[in-house]
């Protein structure tokens, strides 16, 4: 099972397509960001992340 990152929202998933945006996910990603509480997090606000979960920092 390889981890993939959504090319639009950068969310990390094991599926071929992002479960949130339904766009193809890429295996070429780097950096990891875990958002636990998007409402309280400044980082989530800066990157406009609304859902908790794991995100990549860079996706190609």
């Amino acid at each position: 099972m390889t981890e993939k990152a959504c090319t639009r929202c950068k969310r990390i998933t094991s599926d071929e397509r992002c479960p949130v945006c339904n766009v193809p996910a890429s295996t070429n990603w780097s950096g990891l960001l875990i958002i636990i509480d998007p409402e309280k997090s400044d980082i989530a606000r800066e990157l406009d992340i609304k859902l908790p979960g794991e995100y990549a920092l860079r996706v190609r």
Partner: protein
Amino acid sequence: MEDSKNSIYALKTSVGQEKNVARMLARKVRDSGIEINAILVPESLRGYILVESSSKIDMRNPAIRVPHLRGVVEGKTEGESKIEFEEVKRFLKPEPIISSIKKGSIVELISGPFKGERAKVIRIDESREEVVLELIEAAVPIPVTVKGDQIRIIQKEAD
């Protein structure tokens, strides 16, 4: 941006275990309710992770104990372990390496069959993040196309 009382702390981890530590810590946070809002693992920081929390990270708290987590990076004086949000911003939007490469730059290949060889950049494909190189030590100049993450810049400017 509105003011908040969140602070960012750097935690020291074993090198190569940054992502594992982040995931284990995230699980612990969800189970125990420690006040951590986000965990950041920048690729460029080896052996460290950054944690956004609204309360001070105390390593004596058993709930935060995770294998491979070595401790909080402390400043010179007590309570100086915070990192400014402005400093963290550059990790959030990492600039592709390729944007700092110019035609004529000297680079070293860091992976692939030509690992360790030096080469000169002859063309840059920014949209595909590829560069076309010419190996310096090769007797016959053959263009080699590699991905931007397979090279390291040695000399930025052309001679």
